[in-house]
């Protein structure tokens, strides 16, 4: 699938076929997409634990369940518990940046040297970020989010349904045994969709100019009609919700899965 169509087809899928397993190589693809995402200082912010639903004990599944994830956690055969490593930037940046200087990725042309890394970038930037709880959480959440976003798109590209949801941090720590420096982010549910891939149509979003500005705040970015037409032709912009048949679809899928229909 072309990139724009993958972006256009991504939806939060909330109905999965509980009985259909996900091939291991597809899970691998999702994780590779996350591994290769952009990340500051080439640090390992995004961490994940892949869990097969059926490998969880009843007690562990129950402890990972929240009222808002209860349906999906039992339907989706694969759960990817995403975490952000709060120590990643401080731990990884000096050696990774140095490595990139040696590899010709960070260069003199842009001011990068081993001296700059050790005497300026690390103490003045990385340490400052890492010692400030709010800044650290902001950077970690943003950087891990980039990886998670690619993981979502990779799942769509593999023909899977996927969505992000919340999970309880402390029980997840116990069940998954993660290090103390990891902070909980989202669980990504993965499976074959039990609903159509359209899932009711592209979600409503405010117009481009309402979200994005040009030059300064208050001056809306203006796209062109031709640009929008091209994105429709290339399937990034698709038919928006609501679809006339959506409620019938939801009833039928709910009935099939034994979920409340009305």
């Amino acid at each position, binding site marked *: 699938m072309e990139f724009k169509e993958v972006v256009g087809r991504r939806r939060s899928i909330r109905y999965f076929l*509980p*009985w259909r397993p996900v091939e291991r190589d597809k899970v691998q693809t999702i994780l590779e997409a996350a591994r290769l995402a952009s990340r500051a200082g080439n640090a390992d912010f995004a961490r994940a634990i892949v869990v097969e639903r059926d490998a969880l004990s009843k007690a562990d599944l129950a402890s990972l369940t929240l*009222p*808002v*994830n*209860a*349906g999906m956690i*039992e*339907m989706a055969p694969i759960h990817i518990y995403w975490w952000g490593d709060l120590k990643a930037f401080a731990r990884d940046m000096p050696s990774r940046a140095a490595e990139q200087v040696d590899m010709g990725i960070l260069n003199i042309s842009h001011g990068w040297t081993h001296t700059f890394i050790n005497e300026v970038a690390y103490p003045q930037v990385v340490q400052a970020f890492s010692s400030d709880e709010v800044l650290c959480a902001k950077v970690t959440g943003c950087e891990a989010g980039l990886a998670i976003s690619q993981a979502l798109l990779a799942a769509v590209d593999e023909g899977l349904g996927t969505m992000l949801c919340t999970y309880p941090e402390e029980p997840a720590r116990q069940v998954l045994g993660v290090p103390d420096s990891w902070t909980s982010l989202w669980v990504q549910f993965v499976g074959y969709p039990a609903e159509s891939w359209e899932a009711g149509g592209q979600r409503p979003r405010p117009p481009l100019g309402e979200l994005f500005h040009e030059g300064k705040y208050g001056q809306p970015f203006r796209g062109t009609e031709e640009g929008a037409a091209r994105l429709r032709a290339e399937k990034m912009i698709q038919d928006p919700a609501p679809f006339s048949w959506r*409620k019938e679809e939801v*009833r039928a899928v709910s009935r099939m*899965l*034994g*979920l*409340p*229909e*009305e």
Partner: protein
Amino acid sequence: MTTDIENTKTVQAWLKGLEDQSGVSRDEGLQRVAVLQDFCALVDKEPDQIIAECLREVEGGKKIRAKGRRFYADRITEFESSIGGGAGEKRQMGNYIRSFLIHNGVLLQTSPLS
């Protein structure tokens, strides 16, 4: 417990929700109410009491009482087991009760049928 629950506040809210959100007619809705009545008999509670035990008033809205919700989620499962018929039919009856809770603001999800 009274036998006429149709006019209680929470059943009225449910019937309105069924009609507005799911297109369930009033007559069809009343058939669901009869199932709810059986459930109320099982737990020996009025519909308004059930919802009150699952939600509490807080500043600016309502908050779910986890204990109450868990209690009724378990009672619904028991209710399903107590009904005759196939798995699908039992689940359907249980889902009517879940629908009553959901339309009154009690977030409730259930396992898919395996």
